[in-house]
């Protein structure tokens, strides 16, 4: 009789889990090839961002070849050089780092705060709900970009202040979505049951309401990633984002415009393409996440 040891069970369990993961991914890609492709593209961009120093050929800010100003793309500089001879390819690669970092952290922070707030506001209701609704409406009466601009101005320009400013612009949007999910989840009988056996409000919110909000939150957060990347780039373009000389895609596009210089085509095309491809990948991936998590919405918008 074969003996089954505890290790065997653990190994089998792990194998089964990996297999189910692989299977889920394969299944997803078969049903949603666009989603799978955009997911791959995101992985590639994340790889470039994480390993930027190895992927880049030069240092993004310290390297500047004054004998090769505004040089067209070629074998020495794959995407050409900018006005002061910095290597554009390396700057685009390092720009991915800033863009993704800002976008991920801002969306996580802003949307998580928004989600917690939304659950509390929807579940507790009453005065908290009314006051927080009024307050968030105020935040929403600024156009996003302008709100982000004055917040960065108030806090001083830097990577972290840009992140804080952008995440603040996310809060009202996610509160609104998660609050409405909470309001409908709250009506379920199992919530009443939990209350009846004496669960505290905090426990009901964390154990019973929040899990129901995970799927809509994921849809919301992936949708926000694309728009946040554009927002960060806009701030950089306007010269009020992460300060120069840090290589960000927005800074690279805005620098020559602010200086009143006419840029060469490669200085405009490559950073812009980087933004577009990244945002496109996130948007398409977000759409397929939504289709996968919320079949009711499939095919809409």
């Amino acid at each position, binding site marked *: 009789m074969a003996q089954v040891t505890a290790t065997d069970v653990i190994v089998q369990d792990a194998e089964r889990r990996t297999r189910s993961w692989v299977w889920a991914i394969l299944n997803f890609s078969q049903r949603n090839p666009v989603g799978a492709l955009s997911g791959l593209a995101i992985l590639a961009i994340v790889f470039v961002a994480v390993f930027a120093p190895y992927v880049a050929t030069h240092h993004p800010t310290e390297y500047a070849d004054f004998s090769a100003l505004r040089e067209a793309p070629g074998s020495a500089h794959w995407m050409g050089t900018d006005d002061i001879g910095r290597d554009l390819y390396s700057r685009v690669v390092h720009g991915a780092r800033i863009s993704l970092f800002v976008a991920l952290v801002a969306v996580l922070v802003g949307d998580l705060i928004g989600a917690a707030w939304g659950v509390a506001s929807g579940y507790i209701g009453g005065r908290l709900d009314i006051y927080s609704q009024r307050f968030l409406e105020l935040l929403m009466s600024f156009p996003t970009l302008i709100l982000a601009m004055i917040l960065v101005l108030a*806090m001083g320009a830097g990577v972290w202040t840009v992140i804080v400013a952008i995440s603040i612009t996310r809060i009202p949007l996610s509160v609104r979505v998660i609050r409405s999910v909470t309001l409908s989840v709250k009506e379920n009988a199992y919530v009443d049951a939990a209350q009846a056996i004496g669960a505290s409000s905090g426990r009901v919110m964390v154990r019973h309401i929040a899990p129901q909000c995970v799927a809509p939150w994921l849809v919301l957060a992936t949708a926000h990633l694309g728009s946040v990347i*554009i927002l960060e780039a806009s701030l950089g373009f306007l010269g009020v984002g992460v300060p120069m000389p840090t290589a960000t895609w927005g800074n690279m596009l805005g620098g020559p415009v602010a200086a009143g210089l006419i840029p060469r085509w490669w200085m405009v095309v490559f950073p812009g393409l980087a933004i577009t491809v990244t945002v496109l990948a996130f948007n398409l991936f977000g759409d397929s996440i939504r289709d996968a998590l919320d079949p009711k919405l499939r095919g809409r918008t």
Partner: protein
Amino acid sequence: MQKYILRRVLLAIPAIIGLTIIIFLVMRILPGDVLTVMFGEEGTLQLSEEDRARIIASLGLDKPIYLQYVDWLKDIVTLKLGQSFWRSDTVMDLIINRGPITLEIAVFSVILSWLIGLPVGILAAMKRNTPFDYAGRFFSILFLAIPNFWLGTLIVLTLVLTLEWKAPLGVINLWEDPWANLQIIWGPALVLGIGQAAYICRMARSALLETIHEDYIRTARAKGLAERLVILRHALRNAIMPVITLSGVLLGFLIGGSVAVEQAFGVPGLGRTLVAAFFERDYVVIQNLVLIYGLVFVLTNLLVDISYAWIDPRIRYS
């Protein structure tokens, strides 16, 4: 209807007051003092004690904070919005001179977005899963991802390289020289229009596809109405509501976007003035222009809400 409008207007008032409070507070929590923000750290050290006091007084910052706020509210009500620190222009001058250009850009872009987005969306829905539909969807997804300021910069660059185009230097108003004025605004209006058209096309397509399955559409078809009329007379009426709503939601996109696109085209509108004020740390100008942008946003949202109620009677009574 009048009751609804009154209620909506009354709701806008606290929003506007809140707007002034938030802007005021944000401008007061600037790190360090205003002088550092305006002149930089070294610049501030070079100022003499009297200079500092004089500048602080000229900005009205020597008074207690609640008085500063009351003063600002008085300024707003009397439309004396103070003066640029670096230039002779008053904020009202800036708004009167540059505002119309931004307004024109906004209006033209909304018209363009409907002219492009709606027909493409309707046709895509009618010819579902044909190459036309795929092309429409492809371009709308693409244009959602293209940052509008990049599209603007690309257009400017192409014009500069091919036609030796130059950025407009001054403000030219529509009533002075319509043709020259149009040359200034068409670029930003086009870029912002395409950006919104992408959203509108997607929404029009999906809203129409949803309406097409309704019973009354089947009835309209069954009585032998031409498909074109079924769509235009019956389906579109209900499908248009979410599109109008979206167009209202896009106002935020439009107002924020116009700032970046004006900068890309070098158009002397309000947005570019705002960006310049940020660069120069022109305290008074920033505070008041941000208020104007917020006000326009709140008021246009109000108009959009009222227009829904006008189009859809169900809203008035809910």
